[in-house]
């Protein structure tokens, strides 16, 4: 099908983009990589949008270490994340994620900011940022604000971004000595959204586990984390299966997703320790 957009404007910088959104009478829609939005427009799931194309705002693209954090600009593309040396050093979880996201041509245009703002429950980056305890930076007519990943993902395709706001960057803690990351998922075909997936981060302070494609938003698996910190891997698998409430759909049943999540945790721990859990 063909898209019906209400209008298009290319933003020069963030201030201009915010002005454009403010002028759009509630119909404003940020266009970043377009790899979810244009697909939705072509399917007429979204019509009449006043598109604010932010894709050429150079300030929003790139990776840096700043104030003791890894800062990733919202427009940094999936393909760039996959090859960036700072990301490889400080957030290897994101590099692992890139290999599972869509296909090469889509990774050439899709952006991390778009992925977080879109908040598909099966997407990898939201679960990664939650597992790493990241912070999402927003800018709106009232100024800038920061939202912890724990508070950012609200529901299916719904985040803490308010009308008229733009996601500008993500910050993540720098990798500490001995820290380990594993992302693992099962999908029917390479590049498909996962049937279920997990991120496991092991730090001196303890484990952080997130699950994706098992509910309306990525889940921080607190009970499983608590069991892992206690050294009880079998208990962690049971706890994870108990604390998620996955949906049944044409791809997989809830029971299968719950089972799969436990299997993936066992495999992730194996990858993490080199031992059979």
């Amino acid at each position, binding site marked *: *099908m*063909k*898209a*019906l*957009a*209400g*209008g*298009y*404007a*290319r933003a020069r910088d963030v201030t201009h983009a915010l*002005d*454009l959104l403010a*002028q*759009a009478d509630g119909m404003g829609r940020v*266009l970043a990589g*377009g*790899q979810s939005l*244009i*697909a939705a*427009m*072509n*399917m007429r799931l979204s019509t009449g949008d*006043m*598109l604010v*194309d932010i*894709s050429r705002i150079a300030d929003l693209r790139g990776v840096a270490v700043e104030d003791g954090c890894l800062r990733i600009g919202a427009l940094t593309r999936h*393909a760039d994340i996959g090859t960036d040396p700072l990301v490889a050093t400080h957030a290897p979880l994101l590099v692992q994620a890139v290999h599972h996201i*869509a*296909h*090469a*041509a*889509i990774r*050439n*245009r899709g952006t991390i900011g778009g992925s977080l703002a879109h908040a598909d429950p099966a997407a990898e980056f939201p679960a990664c940022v939650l597992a790493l305890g990241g912070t999402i930076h927003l800018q709106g007519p009232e100024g800038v604000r920061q939202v912890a990943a724990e508070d950012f993902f609200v529901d299916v395709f719904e985040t803490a971004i308010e009308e008229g706001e733009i996601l500008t960057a993500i910050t993540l803690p720098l990798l500490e000595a001995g820290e380990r990351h594993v992302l693992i998922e099962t999908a029917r*075909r*390479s*590049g498909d959204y996962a049937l279920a997936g997990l991120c496991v981060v092991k730090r001196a302070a303890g484990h952080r586990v997130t699950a994706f494609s098992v509910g309306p938003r990525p889940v921080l698996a607190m009970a499983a984390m608590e069991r892992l910190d206690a050294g009880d891997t079998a208990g962690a698998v049971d706890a994870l299966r108990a604390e998620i409430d996955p949906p049944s759909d044409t791809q997989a049943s809830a029971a299968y997703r719950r089972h799969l999540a436990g299997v993936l945790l066992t495999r992730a721990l194996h990858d993490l320790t080199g031992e059979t859990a």
Partner: protein
Amino acid sequence: MTEAFRDRIDIALTVNGEAVEGRVPAGRHLIDFLRLDLGLTGSHASCEHGVCGACTIHVDGQAVRGCLMLAAQADGAEVWTLEGLTETGVIRDLQDAFVERNALQCGYCTPGMLASIKELLDMGGVPDRATIREHLSGNYCRCTGYEAIIDAVESVAKARAGEAAA
């Protein structure tokens, strides 16, 4: 409508090495602009939501989905479609290998396949079959069963590496 937003956008870009200008509706995707407005029907459109890869073209040196980019976003860009890639001869060896190995039947997927493969081959070296498969995972073919396509890519990669070494 406010002044800043437009429902028709003037664009100027290069397509297959030639300067092109156009005025496009805001919702027009790049592949329709190329096929319907410029008559460059070599690159195909099928699913129009990013799944099949038939619309894969090169924009500013990268393989992208022509159906997931607006024509308005291509202002100032350098675009290559199958016509241009054919005329310049840059994928002649690959096209010959496709014919030789029967790597196409109906040919619907072929323009997108070739554009995706060009990106992989341009990275240099000889990718293993798993890497080739992974790189082409977003290009659907309903006819060949893929094996012949992988064979063609592998043979061209090896031939090019041999030439580079010679």
